């Protein structure tokens, strides 16, 4: 290569790079592109969200009593079939993979739609699938619940704090109590609290890790006596958290002991990958909105997007999104194929996409200037969703710590 500084501004993106054919020897990575079916699903989801989750509607809803849009969720869940994407066809679902689910997450992330896709159709569904697929005693009940989810008869949430970290054991804060007089065989009673649960507000079925004898995973119907859900004022009101309080609530057990822990671990891992896809969508859409703005906003008699101070920030942001997309697609492809590299891939994706989404939210506000700091503009909701998501299901730092163990880069010894 010749020396420094010689591609001029006129140079074009090449049409047929020389290295296309040069497959790296011994490197075989899963397909990180979007398939045709995934692109079709994206269009279907985007058209529903465009109709029903425009920014003004999303903003207005954050200041109402029902911060979740159950009507919109019904449309996505039933009409597009999002609720049962991950559920096998034998249980009434679509039998799709994490690749398709991630595309829905990207679209939800782009629109900030207040729907419980992540909590119900991904996290709780994966917990139930983990139980169902093992064919153990609770499998049949898990199958029935999955059928309810696929048919949109029910919406579920896993009762763990949204800030839970995949790979770390979740110590249940709910205790298993002795059965009450007159309880039917197989009924359990649960007491305790779970703080900061995502997507539990619209859920009528809670999947609850419980401690004590027996330790396990339990299912609680939202209408049961003794169960209360207290909405909390959340940084991200497009995904309002709630605190759960269980006071001797009736429950059914679907998994016991280590099987319950494995189900929760699988749910959190998949949840982190799905949240990373949401973060990718968020960063992508925030960039689109900002790009359109800097092209039309004039100061000093020229579009502000003609200043290099703006262009270079936008270019770096776009590059960050291309990197995040690779990380996200790799993670969902690994999850879909149950690749041995899945844990590395998910930790990498959540670490990278968390930072890219926060960058996007911050750049969106700054590059919009004054209007970007106003309540009437979407930028603040993007930043709030981004920051909140970066803490949920493991911060970037936590995921990098997981990577350290997985790829043998051990921490410094104590001083």
């Amino acid at each position: 290569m010749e020396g420094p500084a010689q591609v001029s501004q006129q140079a074009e993106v090449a049409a047929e790079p020389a290295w296309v054919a040069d497959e790296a020897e011994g490197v075989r990575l899963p397909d990180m592109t979007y398939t045709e079916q995934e692109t079709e699903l994206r269009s279907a989801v985007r058209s529903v969200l465009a109709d029903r989750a425009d920014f003004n509607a999303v903003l207005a809803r954050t200041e109402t009593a029902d911060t979740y849009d159950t009507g919109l969720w019904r449309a996505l869940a039933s009409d597009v079939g999002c609720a049962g994407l991950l559920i096998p066809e034998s249980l009434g679902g679509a039998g799709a993979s994490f690749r398709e689910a991630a595309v829905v997450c990207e679209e939800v992330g782009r629109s900030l739609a207040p729907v419980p896709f992540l909590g119900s159709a991904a996290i709780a569904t994966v917990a139930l699938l983990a139980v169902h697929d093992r064919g153990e005693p609770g499998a049949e009940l898990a199958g029935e619940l999955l059928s309810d989810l696929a048919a949109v008869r029910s919406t579920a949430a896993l009762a763990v704090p949204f800030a839970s970290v995949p790979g770390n054991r979740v110590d249940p804060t709910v205790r298993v109590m002795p059965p009450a007089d007159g309880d039917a065989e197989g009924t359990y009673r649960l007491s305790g609290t779970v703080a900061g649960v995502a997507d539990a507000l619209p859920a009528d079925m809670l999947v609850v890790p419980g401690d004590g004898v027996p330790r396990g995973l339990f299912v609680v119907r939202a209408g049961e006596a003794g169960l209360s859900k207290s909405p909390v004022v959340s940084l991200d009101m497009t995904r309002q958290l709630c605190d759960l309080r269980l006071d001797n609530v009736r429950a059914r057990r679907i998994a016991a002991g280590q099987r319950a822990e494995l189900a929760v671990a699988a749910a959190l891992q998949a949840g982190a990958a799905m949240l990373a896809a949401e973060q990718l969508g968020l960063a992508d859409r925030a960039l689109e909105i900002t790009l359109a703005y800097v092209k039309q906003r004039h100061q000093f008699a020229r579009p502000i997007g003609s200043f290099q101070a703006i262009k270079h920030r936008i270019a770096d942001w776009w590059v960050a999104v291309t990197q995040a997309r690779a990380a996200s697609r790799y993670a969902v492809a690994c999850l879909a194929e149950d690749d041995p590299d899945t844990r590395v891939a998910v930790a990498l994706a959540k670490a990278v996409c968390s930072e890219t989404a926060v960058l996007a939210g911050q750049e969106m506000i700054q590059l919009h200037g004054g209007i970007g700091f106003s309540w009437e503009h979407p930028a603040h909701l993007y930043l709030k969703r981004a920051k909140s998501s970066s803490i949920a299901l493991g911060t970037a730092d936590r995921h990098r710590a997981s990577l350290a163990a997985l790829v043998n880069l051990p921490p410094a010894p104590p001083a």
Partner: protein
Amino acid sequence: MLTADDLRAQVRAFLVAHDPAVTERMDFLRARFDAGLAWVHYPAGLGGQGLPRTLQKAVDAEFAAADAPTNRPERNGIGLGMAAPTILAYGSDEQKNRWLRPLWTGEEIWCQLFSEPGAGSDLANLATRAVRDGDRWIVNGQKVWTSSAHMAARALLVTRTDPDQPKHRGLTYFSANMKAPGVEVRPLRQATGEAEFNEVFLTDVVIPDSDRIGDIGQGWAVSTATLMNERVALGAFVIPREGGMIGFSAKTWRERPDLRTPGLHDQLLRLWAAAEVARLAGERLRQQLAAGQPGPEGSGAKLVAAKLNQEIAGFEVELLGAGGLLYGDWTMRRPDGADFYGRDAGYRFMRSKGNSIEGGTSEILRNIVAERVLGLPPEIRLDKDKPWKDLPR
């Protein structure tokens, strides 16, 4: 259309007719070119068979399996990667026949005479003059940052032929004979201590008009075609995990627990994650192209690689502590080619500083991403419509 198996059969038949064990190396390579097995995507008669580029791999593998001599492509990167596609696109039939065969066999190494002391990012401002004299041109000027010039037989040369035109319009492109009288090559010692590059002084160098590539005044379009191939060659090959710059730091980290601190651990993990994602992004781009869905993502690959190489190499020197105070060798040397990763940490640290300058500065690349990919308004240009000779400099 021919398949990979057909080509493998062709190679086997060729090897029977030209046993590499008893055929002189250059005779073998010339015969391979003439058989259309040099680069199958090139046209028939020019070393190829007009086939998809993807089939070349099977041909190369078959020759390698037979222990056949290669054309040593690493010695002629500019020739194969940049000169050949430029000649193919803009050269006359006579030029293609004259230049491509010795280029491919490696008999003629090519270099690229583009950058000048006063024309770096603003290449179109170049001042090397070519003045017509009947059926030949007389060239005077100075070029800089030229790799391989000391080994090259021929050069890609862009010159100013009409200073009264605006800068992009008065350029003309040539192939220059590097052995011609008046061509002086001097090593250009760089910050690492060695000299990968050269300065080339051109004093009354005579170039026949038959060595002009493209029309008079078309030099900018031809240069752009050359540069397209450069930037693509520079940032987007797929490597195994830890196969790039990060591999050195990861290895040191594992082998030297005494060097570990909590702060460095955090930095290492950030860099490791960024390097791994850049690797995945490169692979994703390749998958997209293979699936016929080319995206613009490649435009960012060199930006990412330059930044990462610099950060990682800087980290590595700091990780080494007292060892980072040392440097392998400041002796002025003439390496065969560019080596970003070779030698020691100090060398990597210094060499990587060039990565955000060579082949387009990161600032120019950000402009390209912003304007070409994202459609932001172009820079306001004060120099576009003025005669080149009237521009301030």
